[in-house]
């Protein structure tokens, strides 16, 4: 655990020692505002809640999170610091977890910085702040899931462009697997259990159920086990690369 904290601190500080975190946060906030106010017509809605705001999170994460995760391992390899990191007496799982948590915390900071919109709805009306909190928690979990997928894929390739494209694709599949379009396609021929299975992998489905204000244990289990699965994959892939 102490090792995770050591790696986490270094990694988290690195985000803010370089423009990376600032650029990410600014773009995140800007895009969030643009989606919510212009495309989502937040004001025209006449509702004092953040449903519109949260609707766009999956789509924003789809591109922004792989942009963070693609460099997670590739950068260490490129600069040769990978060799330092893996020859320190730190277990590989701790290194993987520490790096991952730092990136996740950074997206968390970006998410927290959207608080003006929360202030706005509270100023305009009296929203259910419990539902809003649930929305934030769901959004953070979803970001974590995207990030775990991206981190795992970045461990598999030294090429950041490939890591980005593949991550976006895989994340996209996870996102839309619950969309009516996809499910209708499968419903036409696949057994119902398969359709249910596919839809149960959907980030959208789980995220939507959390943003409704119900934090169901099943949704939490889904996100956490997905994260654990991909971090495990990450450890295996880094180890496989050691074998050359």
């Amino acid at each position, binding site marked *: 655990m102490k090792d995770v904290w050591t790696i986490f601190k270094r990694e988290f500080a690195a985000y803010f020692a370089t423009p990376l975190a600032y650029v990410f946060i600014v773009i995140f906030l800007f895009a969030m505002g643009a989606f919510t106010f212009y495309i989502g017509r937040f004001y025209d809605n006449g509702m004092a809640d953040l449903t519109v705001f949260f609707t766009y999170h999956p789509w924003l994460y789809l591109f922004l999170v792989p942009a963070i995760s693609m460099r997670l391992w590739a950068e260490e390899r490129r600069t040769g610091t990978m060799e330092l990191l893996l*020859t320190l007496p730190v277990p590989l799982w701790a290194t993987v977890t520490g790096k991952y948590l730092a990136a996740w915390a950074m997206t968390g900071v970006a998410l927290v910085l959207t608080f003006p919109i929360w202030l706005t709805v509270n100023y305009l009306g009296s929203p259910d702040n419990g539902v809003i909190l649930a929305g934030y928690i769901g959004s953070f979990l979803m970001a974590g899931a995207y990030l775990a997928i991206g981190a795992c894929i970045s461990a598999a390739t030294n090429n950041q462009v490939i890591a980005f494209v593949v991550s976006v694709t895989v994340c996209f599949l996870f996102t839309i697997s619950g969309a009516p379009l996809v499910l209708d396609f499968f419903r036409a021929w696949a057994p119902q259990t398969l359709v249910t299975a596919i839809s149960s992998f959907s980030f959208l489905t789980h995220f939507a159920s959390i943003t409704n204000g119900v934090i169901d244990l099943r949704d939490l289990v889904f996100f956490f086990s997905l994260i654990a699965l991909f971090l495990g994959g990450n450890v295996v892939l880094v180890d496989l690369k050691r074998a050359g």
Partner: protein
Amino acid sequence: MRQKRQHKLDGKPGNGGDGQKARVDDETSTIGFENMEPNATLRPLCGSPRPIAWRTARTGTAIGRNVRFVRIAPLLAEGEFSKASNGRGRRDFSMIEIEGLTKTFGPIAAVAGVDLKVARGEVLGFLGPNGAGKSTTMKMVTGYLSPTAGRVRILGHDIETDTLAAQRQIGYLPEGAPAYGDMTPRQFLSFIAEARGFSGATLKEKVAAAVEKTDLDPVLDQPIETLSKGFKRRVGFAQAILHDPPVLIMDEPTDGLDPNQKHAVRALIKKMAADKAIIISTHLLEEVEAICTRAVIIDRGRVVADGTPAALLARSRHHNAVTLTVPADQAAQVKSRLKTISSIGSVEEAARKDGSVQITAFPKAGALLIEDVSALAKAEKWDARELYAEPGRLDEVFRAITTHDTRRAAEDHA
């Protein structure tokens, strides 16, 4: 067997002391060449000509003993080497044990069966042309790459199965001294110290000691990416020695440093050498002569020579050759007189820019020339501006060994 059991009992990672002691004790009774094949070439038992003092980690007492030392000349060729080491039926007290280490990348065998044992007090110079497999070997020894075959043990800890315990004993300076550019040396060294398990006041002490040894003070709070190459290298060096590791592995530690910095790094390595096992890879031959107690030449993934720098030099055509510089008009006479000395095999001359001629006399096998030649020079009243015996030229040996192999490979293919 006994050593293994000891480890199991010991249980705690990072405590190599007991295993070490067991091996040393066992070893005292079996040291020697009893099982040597009759005509195998002898090599030093541990490569170090000095008595070696063993300190057990726990008690701190020294088990001092003179180690028999046999100089090898000519140096062992690869085949002889393996014969000799197979024939040696002794328990080993090496800090680094490498057995049959092999790494293939697709069709390329970057490292092809390297066997090495490095004892405390040894500074092993790892030499070889580019692409010989030096870095790949070091990456496997430090646990960054896993070998295709073979094994590595650091103070008895297997690097593949007991990775963290082994890595705790190692300080490693990777090729190019990588570091996190966005951090300052202070932050970076603190990070390394923390990852190595130090905290609080001890951490500060360790960092301060490493900073002092490497003279990093002036740049301590400047981002590493803005540092000069020399300082960057020193940051890497500080990182490697921070925890005062018993095993130090450095990949081209002086590459890119200016002569003063090179001197400083070498002095530091020399100072630390007594109680460590050190491997440094280099392509600078003068470095080997300056700091190494043992030189290993590797070519296309194989060890092709292993011995003291002196033994390596003895293989040089120039070993014990005598060179003298005389005015051009005396050259012909000097040459013809030199040829009358029976122990001289051949004489070569080279004109120099200032009009004088440099004449080199090569001895017949094993002969010493310097006394005969200087006596002759005195008797004949030559105007010798210089007259000296050559120790041998390492670059010549290096080229002879490594190009010979290349040619042989070409012939094999034909």
